[in-house]
């Protein structure tokens, strides 16, 4: 990919994964915090040492590590949004999605890669919200990395006991008479909330539908807004 050559470190352009030497840019073009904005920490020193030892011992390679970073960078909530839009548009796909989330996303060319996903559907009777009280399990393959708040003590402690107060804190007030259903990802399953398709989206194409499905809708702390 095109990039500036104003840095002080000339490097070989024969290798496709050289770009980690660039100040602040990931292979997918997302900016990182600058590598030299703070003194080297003990844990960063450990990461460098461990990474190098694993490469030297042939357990992995720099290219493999870089490829994994790239793979993770490519996973964003847009993937999950496309799954939701497809389900809204295609009732038969939706049933398959609810029966086996991982198999259904594979149909769409999204790699489940060992993730075992259960999709839970919001209806006019039930609103779902997902938490991992024991750590921070999250459906990374369709949503990317979890937000920091998902990993906080407060979210993990309170969502299973006072989900409505938590949702209110996120700005979500639920309609009268709806049941809240909390999913605690305690073991091998990972959960994705299938939000309700809002009124006023009739006739929308899948791309437009996906555009209103945010990460927070698929965790269950928000609902899609069709404006």
């Amino acid at each position, binding site marked *: 990919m095109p990039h500036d050559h104003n840095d002080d470190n000339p490097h070989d352009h024969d290798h496709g994964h050289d770009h980690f030497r660039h100040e602040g840019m990931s292979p997918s073009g997302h900016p990182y915090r600058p*590598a030299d904005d703070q003194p*080297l920490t003990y844990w960063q020193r450990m990461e460098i040492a461990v990474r190098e030892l694993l490469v030297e011992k042939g357990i992995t390679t720099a290219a493999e590590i870089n490829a994994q970073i790239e793979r993770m960078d490519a996973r964003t909530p847009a993937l999950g949004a496309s799954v939701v839009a497809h389900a809204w548009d295609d009732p038969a796909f939706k049933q398959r999605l609810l029966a086996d989330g991982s198999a259904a996303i594979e149909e769409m060319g999204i790699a489940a890669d060992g993730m075992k996903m259960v999709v839970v559907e919001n209806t006019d009777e039930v609103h779902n919200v997902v938490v991992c009280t024991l750590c921070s399990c999250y459906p990374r393959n369709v949503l990317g990395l979890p937000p920091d708040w998902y990993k906080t003590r407060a979210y993990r402690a309170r969502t299973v006991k006072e989900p409505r107060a938590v949702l209110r804190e996120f700005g979500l007030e639920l309609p009268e008479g709806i049941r809240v259903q909390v999913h605690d990802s305690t073991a091998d399953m990972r959960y994705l909330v299938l939000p309700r398709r809002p009124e006023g989206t009739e006739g929308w194409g899948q791309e437009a539908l996906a555009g209103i499905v945010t990460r927070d809708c698929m965790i269950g702390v928000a609902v899609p807004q069709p404006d």
Partner: protein
Amino acid sequence: MSDTKKTGHRWHDMGGTDAGEIAHDQHAYALWEKRVDALLRLSTVKGYFTVDGLRRVLEDMGEDAFETMSYYERWIASITQNMVEAGAFTIEELNARMAEVETRGPTYGEAQGSGE
């Protein structure tokens, strides 16, 4: 392991415990953190340990670690312990390399090596 006696559940078993407002700060991921994430994925896929081992060590690090270390700091600590237990490298090798890394320069950018 020993904290269960006081409360009947371990510190990391947070469901239903008292807590205040949920902080919504989001930090920007640093390259070293993404590397830690990748190392976890690769080590487990290659069979050196499982995510259960990652969690077990994180839990055994205790509540203080949760309060004082960042998420990926705890992860690299856990990955390292799991890899030592798996025999991927020795503590002697780790010591030598960590010391050498420290001589490379004061910032991550300088110390990270070639990335190759």
